[in-house]
């Protein structure tokens, strides 16, 4: 699965730290998700979508092989 968190963050022009605070997770979590090392739970995915004001599909996309 690929995600566009880094892009969304750039559009909003906020740091990992600020995003982490906004959705109340650790900075490590944002870092791991952006690096593709962690697939968030549905709750966290929904929180991200709500914060960025986009649909979940705009942030998370299935890759071939998923």
């Amino acid at each position: 699965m690929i995600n566009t968190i880094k892009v969304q963050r750039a559009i909003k022009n906020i740091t990992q730290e600020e995003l982490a605070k906004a959705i109340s997770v650790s900075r490590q979590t944002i870092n791991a998700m952006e690096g593709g090392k962690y697939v968030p739970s549905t709750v966290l995915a929904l929180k991200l979508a709500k914060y960025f004001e986009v649909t979940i599909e705009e942030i998370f996309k299935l890759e071939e092989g998923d």
Partner: protein
Amino acid sequence: MKKQPLLPHGFKKIGWVTFIAVFILHLVGIFYDGNLPFFDTTFSMKLPAIVSKKWSGPTQFFTLVEVGPTLTIIIAISLISLMFIAFSRQKEEDEFVSSLRLNSWLWAAWINSALLLLADLFIYNEPFMSVVEINLFALLIIYIIRFHYLLYKYSKS
């Protein structure tokens, strides 16, 4: 998300301070060959025991034993401080941190089991006693190292 059974974040600091203090005390103890100048090693007291056996004596259950409590207390403090470090909540305890915890426990269980197996196969007689001593703390220590390494790794971008 369901809350994990963890201690409040503040316990972590208490754990570290106590553990480092006991560790330094231990090093000083090694330097003085086990006879700390400020410890009365002849001091002993009666403590309740579930089971006790002297080298040449009967096995006693639910009894009072006359022992020097220093070692017992040092091990208890070390274990409690390690538990405080391992079991206290991170400042930002979220689902990813939980997954790091799980990963770290798995690592600790694997390494601890492997070390025990190696010790069983290749260590005999008296040194095997040190295996037991080290194993008292090994699981917690391996977990703490792995968990903090992972937190550090993911804090760098």
